[in-house]
């Protein structure tokens, strides 16, 4: 998915969090967003997800103004925490994936998504019996279920172990190779394990830098 951001600014009251942010991504690009707490990373993600209304500046998805964009199912989103989700009522992973996609997803689609995350055996498990890491991998599998054109990942591996992180980035690289545009927010200073094409660094005064990088061969990627 092609993404164009033109002169985007966003303020909370008098405090400017994003100041004149512009960037352009093509299908299959991989953007890493870094910055300390309070530099506007999550605010920018919320703008991209349509949760923060874009008033100053413009965002286009495949040349379509975000304010008129309707195909939200093309986007996959994984956040650090899913505070909005009700974890206490019994629901199996299979049922959860089934109601998470309004398109009729086949069982094989769901199995494939779980297999990509290495949690195939959790299919019929009750979600409230899963560990934090298993739960996060289930949410990641869900984001892949709709065959997203753009995958937005807001520190998705912050609460999971090394093995799950490895599964996760392998799956993300695989999707990226298939042409899915990736936007990843990270606090991690080390980006050695990521095969990104662009990096956006955000600063606390609202300013930012956007750089392009030569991508390495995937075989060199080490977790």
């Amino acid at each position, binding site marked *: 998915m092609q993404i164009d951001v033109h002169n985007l600014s966003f303020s909370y009251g008098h405090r400017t969090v994003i100041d004149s942010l512009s960037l352009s991504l093509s299908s299959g690009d991989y953007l890493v967003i870094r910055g300390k707490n309070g530099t506007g990373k999550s605010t920018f993600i919320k703008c991209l997800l349509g949760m923060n209304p874009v008033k100053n500046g413009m965002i286009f998805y495949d040349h379509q103004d975000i304010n008129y964009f309707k195909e939200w199912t093309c986007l996959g989103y994984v956040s650090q925490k899913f505070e909005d*989700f*009700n974890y206490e009522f*019994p629901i*199996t992973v299979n049922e959860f994936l089934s109601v998470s996609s309004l398109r009729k997803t086949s069982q094989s689609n769901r199995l494939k998504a779980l297999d990509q995350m290495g949690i195939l055996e959790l299919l*019929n498990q*009750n979600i409230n019996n899963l560990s934090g890491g298993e739960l996060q991998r289930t949410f990641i599998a869900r984001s892949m279920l709709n065959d997203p054109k753009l995958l937005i990942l807001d520190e998705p591996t912050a609460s999971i172990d090394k093995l799950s992180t490895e599964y996760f980035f392998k799956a993300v690289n695989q999707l990226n190779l298939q042409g899915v545009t990736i936007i990843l927010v990270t606090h991690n200073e080390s980006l050695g394990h990521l095969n990104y094409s662009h990096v956006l660094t955000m600063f606390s005064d609202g300013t930012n830098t956007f750089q392009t990088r030569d991508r390495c061969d995937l075989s060199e990627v080490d977790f």
Partner: protein
Amino acid sequence: MVLSFFTDLFQQDFMLRALLAGLILGVLAPVIGSIVVIRRLSFIADTLGHFSLVGISVSLFLSTLGISIFFERPLYLGILFSVVGGLLVELFRRSYKNYKEISMVIVISIGAALSAIFFSLSKKTGSLYNYLFGSILTITNYYVILILITAVIVFALFIIFGKQIVAVSFEESNAKMLGVNVGLFQFLFMIMLSIVVSVLLESVGVLLISSMMIIPVAAAMKVGWSYKSTTIIAIVFSELSVFFGLWMAYSFTIPSGAAIVSINVILLMAISFIKKIRSRKLVKKEPITNESAE
């Protein structure tokens, strides 16, 4: 006592009507109740019940003014006011996003105050007892048909929009991303809930509506392993409560709503107790590993 209950069940029309209405409500209440529990709005049935009571008290008050159009069927205004109550809850919820319960307390207070005022003005406070505690044994054929129509509409909506309703209930933000019109589905569910609450009001009474909707679901959550199994178990518990509740009401001449809810509570306590015993046994049986020994 048991034999005469079964004999009367099939010989007395009022018993058959009560059983039929109870069995339909026994499915309807937990199906709606499970969504209410997922949305963490367990208090809402009480809230809407109180607002429905306003409609009934207004019907009675209007009849004292000579407007008797709703006197025979006070439930119509009950349903209308229940829907208004539901909309007020949604309205207040937007002002107190992180304190959902505040909106319900505000609406329940308005409902209780208004119904007390109109019952008092109508000078028909004698009927208040029936509306507070319900009387499923005195319901008419008309009411049974009304319950049946409500059930058909609710199940049809669930068949068509079930996936969206469940998606919005479990996680609003993801449903939004999937392109679901969250506001529309919340509104649709609130209308469904308001109608079901009003229909329940006559049989179990305003004070026991919540129990009929929530307690079977609360018990089923302790043993269910999936959304589907939890809902089915809740329906089974609910139907058992209706049947044995009617038997209790008939045998000991006690209010039917209270009897049904009492069985619900007994089931909940029994399930909790059995689960506790079983989990204790499992802990005891678990072998001592090297790690735990250390």
